[in-house]
């Protein structure tokens, strides 16, 4: 059958491009291993506090130090010269200076989020130290790191894995599928096909199916790496996880094809795809929640496909949730995919 021929030929040509093939599979694995080893401790990213040492240490310093040892902040003791050099380089997020009349905190406005977290922890530790000095024994509220589904992940990388996979597949769709097609069209590689009776949809579907299988292989490699190198387990069912991968990847590839029909040059495509990629990524809720945004933005974002896709991946993988909990979101992703594929077939040009 023609579609099968087209599909196998795509695979053959794909595998012959060894460099590209290698990086497609190696890149997400390297990312995962990198994050996995950085955050081996189990919690999320820690922040460093620079503490400027003085020659004569006051007793309150010792109490504060003891209190800080109970927190995730890493204390780095530096001399005033070392500290000001580090501050000047912009590497310090928060810096604590102790003078006889008390402490002073400086937070780097460029590293606001980390600096403020560190500062708050220091404030809290200081209150604890003061309370203890007055003979009190303050009690802290216990905190645990858990996924929304209630399972405890052994490693911060476990939270990253589904998101990493999801974003990686999105970028394959937008960049490797869409961009490559614009480049090929620009170079005239489709012209010869344009004078054959090959239907456009078979050509496009052949490519989608090939890239889909590529992304499945990629997911399997990533999951295997997570499992055997970092001990991250899929808490849900594998078939359901892969089904979500397929739906999402297919939709993002179709989106890549649809976008590629809007551009005539690779440069033009770069602009268009960034216009789509960055808002979708930033608004998807992958990096921060949108509780503070105006309601209409929150509503509009609900219609974007990335966030339900990542939610389903995370839910299944980290919480062992069932696919059935995510059906409306996945339906939305599917609708996006079908619409985009329709646009892609309709607007596809050989020249």
């Amino acid at each position, binding site marked *: 059958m*023609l579609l099968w*021929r087209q599909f196998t*030929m795509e695979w*053959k*040509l794909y595998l*012959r*491009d060894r460099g590209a093939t290698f990086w497609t599979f190696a890149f997400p694995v390297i990312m995962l291993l990198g994050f996995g080893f950085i955050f081996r401790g189990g919690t999320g990213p820690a922040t460093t506090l620079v503490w400027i040492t003085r020659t004569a240490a006051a007793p309150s310093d010792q109490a504060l130090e003891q209190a800080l040892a109970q927190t995730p902040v890493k204390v780095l003791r530096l001399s005033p010269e070392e500290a000001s050099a580090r501050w000047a380089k912009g590497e310090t997020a928060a810096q604590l200076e102790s003078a006889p009349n008390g402490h002073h905190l400086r937070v780097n406005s460029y590293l606001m989020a980390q600096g403020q977290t560190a500062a708050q922890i220091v404030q809290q530790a200081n209150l604890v130290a003061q309370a203890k000095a007055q003979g009190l024994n303050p009690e802290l509220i216990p905190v645990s790191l858990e996924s929304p589904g209630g399972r405890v992940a052994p490693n911060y990388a476990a939270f990253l894995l589904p998101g990493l996979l999801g974003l990686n597949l999105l970028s394959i769709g937008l960049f490797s599928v869409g961009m490559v097609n614009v480049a090929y069209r620009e*170079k*005239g*590689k489709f*012209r*010869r096909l*344009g*004078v*054959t*009776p*090959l239907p456009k949809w078979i050509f496009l579907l052949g490519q989608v199916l090939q890239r889909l299988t590529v992304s499945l292989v990629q997911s399997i490699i990533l999951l295997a790496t997570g499992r055997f190198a970092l001990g991250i387990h899929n808490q849900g069912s594998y078939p359901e996880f892969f089904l979500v991968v397929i739906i999402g990847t297919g939709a993002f590839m179709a989106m890549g094809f649809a976008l590629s029909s809007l551009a005539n040059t690779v440069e033009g495509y770069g602009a268009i795809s960034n216009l789509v990629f960055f808002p979708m990524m930033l608004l998807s809720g992958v990096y921060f929640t949108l509780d503070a945004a105006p309601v209409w933005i929150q509503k509009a974002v609900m219609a974007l496909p990335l966030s339900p896709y990542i939610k389903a991946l995370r839910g299944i993988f980290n919480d062992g949730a069932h696919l059935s909990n995510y059906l409306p979101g996945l339906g939305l992703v599917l609708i996006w995919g079908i619409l985009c594929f329709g646009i892609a077939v309709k607007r596809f040009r*050989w*020249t």
Partner: protein
Amino acid sequence: MIDLALRVRGIRKQYPKVLAVAGVDLEVRRGEVFGLLGPNGAGKTTTLEMIEGLTPADAGEIEILGLDWKHHGREIRSLIGVQLQSTSLFNKITPREALDLYGAYYPTRRSAQELLELVQLTDKADAYHTTLSGGQQQRLALALALVNDPELVFLDEPTTGLDPQARRSLWGVVRGMKAEGRTVILTTHYMEEAEALCDRLAIMDHGVILSEGSPTELIAQLGLPSIVELTFEGPAPDSVSFSAHLGLPVDARGERWEIPTADPKSALPAILGAAETCAVPFCQIHVRRATLEDVFLHRTGRSLRE
């Protein structure tokens, strides 16, 4: 009624800055080899690609083997074979794979092996497309044009970049197609090729067809069957005063003057006389029959390979 393989009426193509094709009419009979000649940028490729359905025409009608693009796109594509002026394939496909793949798109097909033998590419059958030489890629493009055993073949400059032997073998392929009753439409920049292969020719420039007919008709239409050539050692001198003296137009071309004439018998003594009077330092003189090249120069005012 004559059985037409191709009928084109008033096709036009306006690019942002140029009117590439400014209303072209063509009729090509079944079984004919038809040539489209013209200098660079004349609009040949644009004309062919509109007919092949690759470039949308701004206006005009196209009928191929009695079918029109609007209703019979797939049938037309199945029946025609196309060699584009430059064929860019996927880098790492081999000739054999390309022929098998493209063959699979058609209801009828010729075997890859047979086509590879036809264009003498058997020893490169399994090499990546990017590693083929320019001429070998060109031959693969020809084989691809024949993969569906087409009724009508379009060849856009099929012999450009071919060595003399490959060119002769392409001529053989074209003659073979004609012998089988198929139709071939080709463009070329080689006049001897057009003369050797084509039953009929059209000369085009600036997007319009300037004249049309068989090679002998075109030469006869010129009305100047003979050319007297004066050859110089080194660049030809200015011909204005000589031409005025002779009373005939003179074309200075490189190291020679060409004087077209309908009656060489009486022109020759006059030319020799004028040369004597004007003290023209020519070293040779000879008379030859007008060729297609002369027709081309006269119609377009340009040399073909300029």
